């Protein structure tokens, strides 16, 4: 079985500052070019920042969540499937 590039389409959600910079609260079917459905959190974030260049300003301060799980370690590999949800969240928290 060859490990080719596969395009996985995920749904993006943007919160707070990231929403302002991205210009949208949500973006459906965002294409991610993966290696057999796998990318690191950092790579996903890079692809998102390529498409929404204004996000670069906060790229190093955001956290992403994959299917409602925080990706604390951006080097860790994510197993992505079509329809997955990726949320971009600035690291600010209240109660």
């Amino acid at each position, binding site marked *: 079985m060859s490990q080719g590039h596969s395009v996985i389409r995920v749904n993006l*959600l943007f919160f707070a500052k990231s929403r302002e910079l991205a210009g949208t609260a949500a973006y459906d079917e965002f294409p991610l070019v993966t290696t057999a459905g796998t990318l690191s959190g950092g790579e996903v974030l890079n692809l998102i920042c390529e498409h929404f260049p204004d996000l670069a300003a906060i790229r190093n301060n955001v956290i992403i969540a994959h299917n409602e799980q925080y990706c604390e370690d951006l080097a860790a590999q994510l197993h992505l499937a079509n329809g997955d949800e990726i*949320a971009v969240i600035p690291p600010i928290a209240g*109660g």
Partner: protein
Amino acid sequence: MNYLKLTFEKLEVGEINDLVAHESCGAISLFVGTTRDNFDGKTVVLLQYEAYEAMALKTMNNLCDEIRTRWPDVKNIGIHHRLGTVPVKEASVVIAVSSPHRKSSLEAVHYAIDELKKKRSCLEEGTVRRRRGMLRMEGEQGVHLVEKSQR
């Protein structure tokens, strides 16, 4: 029972108290988090909250599980968080815990608010007043000032 809610409406402390009250319980402990009028030497006008709702509720549910593991006699837990604008003095979060005797509910409520603050359940953004116009300020970590001119 866990009574978890995210709402844009003003929080009613009495209502949340009544939700967690139970005939087997002799104690209800409450924490109410309110908007304070100052932060870092600046005057705060209001705080705004938004939530990634699915994650916020998941976080709160996990917190309830943790509470019940540590204090097995806790009966009901209520966590209500307000979204949108919360003016000074008004409640952004109410946590209520009932238990047969007071020790568990007092300790559990304390634990709950400390954990909730740590776990990023909701995003908080403050609007502060300066001499000229308003400055918008991001949360408590990584304060990022954005000049918002008012003419």
